[in-house]
């Protein structure tokens, strides 16, 4: 029975990981684009994205999940059939906005002198950002980013409210039916999965921080 439960939990955790990985891979670059838009010299663009970030950060992620899934009904369409896709969209938008705010803070914390040093050396704006600013920003935002990434791992369990997404918490609930097991045991098992994975992420971030501590900003 133990191995059967473990197998079900592991399958659920794969779904959790899938949602986590997709969100991270897409939200990291999209967040940077949103950060650029929020800092744009063109005022309307800046404002549009500031409002978007306000709305996304100002409403619960669970509500956003429902809106993405059932929102099409507003336009006379049926709800999204693929609830995993809906969850991915909601998570990417939500996390991209949080990442954007972190990026923005990091980019703004780099002294003007670094840009000007690049400028007087004849570098282009792209070169200044990619060769001079970016690595310093990454170093500065690593700690807040690790917070956000760890939160994302745990937030993925919100996806099971949409139904049809058997991530690890949903899997734990399902497994009690199969084996007539008190709910608490598989849930504790799910907790161990989270702990181990987040432990690994913590080590990874510690490693990155160490790797980037060869210089001081």
């Amino acid at each position, binding site marked *: 029975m133990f191995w059967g439960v473990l197998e079900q939990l592991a399958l659920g955790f794969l779904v959790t990981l899938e949602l986590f990985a997709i969100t991270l891979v897409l939200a990291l670059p999209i967040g940077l684009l949103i950060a650029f838009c929020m800092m744009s010299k063109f005022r309307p663009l800046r404002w549009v994205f500031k409002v978007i970030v306000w709305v996304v950060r100002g409403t619960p992620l669970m509500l956003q999940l429902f809106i993405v899934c059932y929102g099409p009904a507003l336009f006379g369409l049926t709800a999204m059939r693929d609830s995993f896709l809906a969850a991915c969209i909601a998570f990417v938008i939500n996390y991209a906005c949080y990442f954007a705010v972190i990026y923005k803070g990091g980019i703004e914390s780099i*002294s003007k*002198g*670094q840009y*000007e*040093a*690049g*400028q*007087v*050396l*004849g*570098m*282009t*704006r792209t*070169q200044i950002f990619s*060769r*001079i600013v970016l*690595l*310093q920003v990454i*170093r500065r935002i690593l700690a807040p980013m690790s917070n956000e990434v760890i939160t994302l791992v745990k937030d993925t369990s919100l996806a099971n409210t949409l139904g049809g997404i058997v991530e690890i918490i949903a899997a734990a609930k399902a497994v009690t039916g199969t084996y007539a097991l008190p709910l608490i045991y598989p849930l504790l098992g799910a907790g161990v999965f989270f702990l181990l994975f987040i432990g690994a992420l913590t080590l990874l971030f510690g490693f990155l921080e160490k790797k980037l501590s*060869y*210089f*001081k*900003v």
Partner: protein
Amino acid sequence: MAFLEVCGYRKKFGENEVLKGISFSLEKGEVLAIIGSSGGGKTTLLRCLNFLEIPDEGELRLGGETLFDAAEKLRLSDTRIREKRLHFGLVFQQFNLFPQYTVFRNITLAQTLLAKQELARKKREFAAARKGAPKERRKELKAEQKKILAEIRDTQKERIAQKTDELLARVGLSEKRNAYPYELSGGQQQRVAIARALALSPDILCFDEPTSALDPELTGEVLKVIKGLKSSDSTMIVVTHEMEFAKNVADHVIFIADGRIEEEGTPEEVFGNPKSEKTQAFLRKSLEEPF
């Protein structure tokens, strides 16, 4: 005609007019010291020369050619500004070294990027040449071109490394080649910054209070390096509070007060026999022993 001619530079920030018509000229190989109290517009003038700010009015001629004319109402493109900037170098008060790179890489970075652009241009030229060639020749041509490009790349790399080592020797930091900026003292950082500015061989090298952020015991080494750069083909503009330095090193001194040139001349004239009352007051204040 002088090497550098600045005519009627004006710059306003909002309602605050910082430069109220600055004109001066400078010969090749001369050192110009700009003195004056804080807030007088010295730094803004340097920033305008380096196109970190664009003057509202005025004209700049370098080597007889008009480099900038505010009367041309065209908005300058990024590329155009970048080309203009390369005529000038700037050493900042706060050094502004790139913290993630070694001393060597700090100095080579800009050159390497420029070399890469040059290589990319050559590559495009070659590609066009291939298109024009007869079909059976193309493969052969491509191999030849590849060899040429590799050669160019190697010479570029060698040239940059050699030049950088020379510059490091010149500022006395050869043994710090692979150190990171945080491992250096302020004076050493500023010397690296000087080498970095020199690496692009600017026509005119500007210094914005290069020793103001340094401990007093470190100013000497930086001033010595700047003094050592003085030669017939290096033209320099130094904004400074070090009156002794201005007196001993500059060929020409300008005193700026309230956005205008209040007095200018040789160090003997400005320091020995100032005509304007403002200059006299300023010099009295800067030269008197505070305690």
